[in-house]
């Protein structure tokens, strides 16, 4: 069964914006509701404004044009240590998304091609872009 609610990581999100590839098709498919953390949004905003020279309004408009729910860290901070134990040794920057995945019930998994997320494969389904089209 296809998922409906997916946790979104920075690499797939950014690739979907700057490349006309599979990630772009998934983002605009309108089949999914994406959920992510403030940390991911801060990274995307920085990439768009600093690396791509996009003005702040356009960067925010672009982020808002994706069917996306941004979750504040207060919601998942109680799962921070558990997430750190799971993925902290691989990449500290992935802790917030894993903490969110541990906190949020009823999501359908993480959409990511990042190999670091393989360590949480037993806990959550990790979706590849081609599986979502």
């Amino acid at each position, binding site marked *: 069964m296809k998922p*409906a*609610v997916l946790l979104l990581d*920075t*690499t797939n999100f*950014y*690739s*979907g*914006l*700057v*490349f*006309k590839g599979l990630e*772009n098709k998934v*983002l*605009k498919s*309108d089949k999914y509701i994406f959920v992510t953390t403030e*940390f991911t949004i*801060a*990274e*995307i905003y*920085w*990439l*768009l404004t600093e*690396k*791509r020279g*996009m003005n702040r309004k*356009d960067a925010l*408009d*672009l982020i*808002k*044009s*994706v*069917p996306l*729910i941004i*979750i*504040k860290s207060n*919601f998942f901070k109680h799962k921070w240590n558990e997430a750190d134990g799971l993925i902290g040794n691989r*990449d*500290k*920057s992935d*802790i*917030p998304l894993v903490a969110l995945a541990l*906190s*949020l*019930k*009823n999501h359908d998994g993480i959409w990511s091609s990042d190999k670091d997320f393989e360590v949480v494969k037993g806990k959550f389904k990790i979706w590849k872009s081609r599986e979502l089209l």
Partner: protein
Amino acid sequence: MGQKILLNLPEKDLEKVETLVKIGEFTSKTEVIRFAVKQLLYSEERMKKFEELTKELQKQTKERGMTRKEIEREVEEAKEQTRKLISQMR
């Protein structure tokens, strides 16, 4: 003032709606439904904005001759800032 409607939702969808309220993203189930309807009705407008802004970014990627590896390097730079922030939070 709007009109009231009665709505039957499958259990699975209702659970998801309730989760969105529980996590504080919406104040009520009604608000979630309103948001979903708005998303559907304005999806064309949203998609137009998405297309317009991503087209420019994709053009830039092509002009700069950037590969996936280079995009991943850019993401790494952004993630490095998150790592620093996280280490300051501890």
